[in-house]
């Protein structure tokens, strides 16, 4: 290599190293700011009310609601899921199960257990979706309807459900997730208090692995027995208790989990329903709602309430987790690409300048830069261009920030949700929050980069998703 080329290489490497450090600083500061904002939000919000008091307050005010549950190959769990949904505490609601072309006996099980009777052919609804084969209503439970349609994916199934929904609000829920009995009541509060301006509300999603389940309800909160699921417990806690609460405080909440979210049906109809062009349909819908409302200068609110909890099973082996994370990341990139004009634009309010900018920084820029850092730093160190003590100090600081942010999430959990009943649980979670910095964090970054590559290759679809049963109580 000639001297000028070598000099140019060294200069470039140093510039890259500085970029790595700068992105690291911004990323850590952002997390720190989110943690402080979430803490502030938590101490200044009203304490959660007991279910009975909530019911008394909302029984006349809560708008009719439709719970829409897309189901694909859920024969094993569908009956229990539907029974649990029908037993939710809410004054006026219906459950619409959308059998999305299941290959197993999901529909037969529903027909048999709930005495389904066919309803008439209806004209096409306002949202497009693949053809329906039949619509059924339960003779045993009139609040239950079932749509049987050809397979079109989760977004398509939700669109079919939204067409049929009669409620002013609809709740999008997963068939393999478990809602706490009062979750609808708790999540609907912002709709009652904020009126028409509130268009969407998200709740908390928690890891159900290891928790015994009876009658579609988590009867005792326990920690997962597998380390990988434990790591995800800390991750979910950080994402929901901290990040979403903080973003919501600024009016910048850009995602409501597909496992549990409540939307104003009219607002979703106006934006054209869920997009079938992405695997991140939950994120994309919220971004589209922000964009639509902002571009028309309408007043609106997208809220997050931590108390309503939905329990979900997370992958317990690396291959399944990798597939899930790559898909999530691909979905995020698809949504970001579709709404890239919102990034950093004041016209789109806090959702644009804060929400999307953070998403772009944390999900697109940071993983690539961090990976470059892992490759570059040892090279620069070997060439004597980075001081060893500085490199170690920098890594220690990154680790310390990671620990403090995870501990902040634990504090938030203790202040509000307190779903983990034992002191031992907190100690284990704190230990996991420390350990995740060594290996898991780097692995998660690699999956993000794999998601980048999959997106660049134009990969589409959900891929294979194994179903796991809950632990019986």
């Amino acid at each position, binding site marked *: 290599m000639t001297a000028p080329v070598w000099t140019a290489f060294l200069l470039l490497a140093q510039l890259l190293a500085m970029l790595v450090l700068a992105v690291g600083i911004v990323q850590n500061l952002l997390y720190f700011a989110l943690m402080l904002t979430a803490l502030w939000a938590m101490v200044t919000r009203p304490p959660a009310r007991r279910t009975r008091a909530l019911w008394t307050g909302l029984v006349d005010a809560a708008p009719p609601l439709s719970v829409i549950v897309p189901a694909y190959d859920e024969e094993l769990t569908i009956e229990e899921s539907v029974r649990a949904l029908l037993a939710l505490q809410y004054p006026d609601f219906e459950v619409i199960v959308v059998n999305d072309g299941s290959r197993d006996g999901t529909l037969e099980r529903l027909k048999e257990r709930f005495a389904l009777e*066919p309803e008439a052919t209806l004209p096409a609804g306002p949202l497009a979706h693949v*053809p*329906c084969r039949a619509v059924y209503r339960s003779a045993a439970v009139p609040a239950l309807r079932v749509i049987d349609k050809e397979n079109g994916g989760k977004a398509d199934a939700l669109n079919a459900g939204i067409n049929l929904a*009669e409620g002013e609000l609809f709740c999008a829920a997963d068939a393999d997730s478990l809602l706490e009995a009062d979750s609808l009541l708790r999540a609907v509060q912002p709709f009652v208090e904020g009126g028409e301006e509130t268009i969407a509300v998200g709740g908390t999603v928690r890891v159900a692995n290891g928790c015994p389940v009876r009658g579609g309800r988590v009867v005792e909160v326990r920690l997962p027995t597998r380390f990988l699921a434990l790591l995800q417990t800390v991750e979910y806690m950080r994402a929901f208790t901290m990040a979403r609460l903080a973003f919501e405080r600024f009016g910048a909440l850009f995602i409501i989990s597909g496992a549990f979210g409540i939307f104003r049906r009219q607002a979703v109809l106006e934006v054209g329903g869920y997009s079938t062009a992405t695997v991140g349909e939950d994120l994309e819908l919220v971004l589209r709602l922000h964009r639509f409302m902002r571009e028309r200068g309408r007043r609106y609110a997208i809220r997050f309430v931590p108390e309503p909890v939905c329990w979900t099973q997370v992958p317990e082996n690396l291959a399944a987790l990798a597939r899930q994370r790559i898909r999530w990341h691909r979905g995020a990139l698809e949504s970001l690409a579709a709404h890239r004009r919102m990034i950093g634009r004041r016209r789109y309010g806090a959702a644009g300048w804060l929400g999307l900018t953070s998403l772009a920084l944390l999900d697109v820029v940071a993983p690539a830069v961090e990976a470059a850092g892992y490759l570059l730093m040892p090279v620069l160190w070997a060439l004597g261009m980075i001081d060893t003590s500085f490199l170690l100090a920098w890594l220690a600081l990154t680790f310390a920030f990671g620990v403090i942010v995870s501990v902040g999430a634990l504090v938030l959990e203790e202040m509000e949700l307190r779903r983990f009943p034992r002191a031992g649980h907190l100690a284990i979670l704190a230990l996991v929050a420390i350990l995740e910095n060594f290996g898991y964090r780097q692995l998660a970054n690699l999956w993000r980069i794999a998601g980048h590559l999959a997106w660049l290759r134009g990969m589409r679809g959900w891929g294979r998703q194994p179903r796991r049963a809950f632990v019986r109580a």
Partner: protein
Amino acid sequence: MVPSPPLIEAFSRAIWQLALILVLIGLLVVLVLVLRRLLEELRRDGLARRREVARRLILEHLRSPDAAVEADALSDLPADFLIELIDELAQMVRGEGRARLAELGRRLGLLDRLLEELRSWRPGLRLEAARRLSIYRGEEVVRALSELLFDRAVPVRIAAAIALLDHEVALPDLLRHARLDPALSRPAAFLFWQRLAEIRPESFERLFATSGPAGRRIVMLKAAGAAGLGRLAPRIAAETGSPDPEIRRAATIALLDLNHPLALDALSRMLADPEPRLRAEAVVAIGRRKLVALLGALRDRRDDPDPAVRFRAEEALLRLGARAATGGGSGGR
């Protein structure tokens, strides 16, 4: 590009120290959390038992006025715990029972504690304290709640207004305030208006007769329907001709909630509303409530220019039995 070694060294040292401080803070916080939880776990069983005993004692006192509760038997329980217990029981009893609970709360010093919480910097605590004060009577309570009507947090203002509704002496002032306070025009004020309609229907009617912002009109209409204020139906029906679509909608729903005969006319008008959303809602309401009297008008909606209205009309006709179930599916594209 590379800074001089002493500078790097000093910088590295500073970073190390910062990292160390952060980790120590983190570990200390975890230690506090875990220890607090351990202590709670040790006390939990005993506390649960004592809570049950306290609950039984208070319930006994509520059932029989002669069974006086010895304040000493409860005084060693934490105040938060007793406040929550009395609040829970207050939601289950009315009239004399609430008065007895309030008297007990006074004797245990819980009223003073609640009045203190009204001055908390945390709006959530002020809100809960205001709500829990609704069972207590007395000048000091009225004064404290009245001050809260000017709180900077809207939910706190609304909670104070609801708590004050039970204090007759404060009502004229409160109603004057209600006319002016924008917080009471918000959807969140529904409970205030519903309670006012239930316990002071004349006052509610007087306020309804005065003009006010659209938000207040809408929330009052909803409250009138929920409270079953039937004698207000003619005035509510007049609102179905409002130029504001949200007021038209709220008025029609209120008439339906009242089960008033005027609801059918209002619903017929809503079926022909220029807003497709309102037409769709009217169609759904006819189907859900099985209003066969409007079958003809419903059939006409099958030719509505809006696809959502047509869809809902077919569905409502099916519910009314005016269309046979054929076993087909809902359309897709």
